[in-house]
């Protein structure tokens, strides 16, 4: 396993969480916009507006996954090299943003 000593447990855990949730955010956009009668309608019912539900889902997922990742490996947190973590984080944010923009470019 790669050396992770250079970055703190929470720095790694929440970076990984951010990467995962960036992609989940984009996937949720596609799923809800493609399922207006089911997923989008359910998200609207939950809080009164689909975007509020979407925002709560994203923030709660970020906090929960970051906490879970920090509890991995007997409480030492996820093990990943700094360079790999950086690639994952930047890649996921860029892909997440590009998927959303691409989706609305096609669908809009």
């Amino acid at each position, binding site marked *: 396993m790669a050396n992770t000593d*250079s*970055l*703190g447990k*929470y*720095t790694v855990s*929440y*970076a990984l969480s*951010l990467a995962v*949730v*960036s992609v989940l*955010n*984009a996937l949720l*956009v596609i799923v809800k916009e493609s399922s207006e009668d089911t997923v989008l309608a359910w998200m609207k019912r939950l809080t*009164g*507006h689909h*975007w*509020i539900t*979407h*925002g709560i889902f*994203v*923030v709660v997922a*970020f906090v929960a996954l970051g906490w879970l990742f920090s509890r991995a490996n007997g409480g030492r947190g996820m093990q990943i090299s*700094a*360079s790999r*973590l*950086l690639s994952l*984080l*930047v890649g996921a*944010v860029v892909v*997440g*943003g590009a998927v*959303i*923009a691409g989706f*609305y*470019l096609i669908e*809009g």
Partner: protein
Amino acid sequence: MTGGVEGLMMVHVLFGMLCIVAAVWVFVDVLNVSEANLARIRLMSMAVAVFMWLAYLIGGYWYVTYYAADKAVILKGAWPWAHNFFMEMKEHVVLLLVLLTTYLPIAAAGNLAANKSARTLVLWVVGLIALIGVAMDGSGAIIGVGAKIGLMPH
């Protein structure tokens, strides 16, 4: 639309701009990091997060409460894509900005002066915040112009 609501939108833009300025501040401070400016980097990283959350909550309140009327105007105007692409994209990409700015104080908590990996990570995070922030600001401007064009006589 009332003056108070317009004022709310201006406060949303103000906090968004402050977030970008603070992110650029952190970027420059991290490039010149030493033990002397570590506390300021952490403080400004927290400021980036606070400014973004204020922009997000105020803009979100405005969007959920008042945007439907603007949307109808934009869609009837000559720039329907100001909503169909820019607003739809903005309201979801901005969540990446919320996550990145929330993460920044965590990433900046380490000793950036001694740790090159942590320094590189923070530089990428604030770089993304500044770039996405400018994209959101520009999208907001296009949406505003879309509404203005929608109100013009055809």
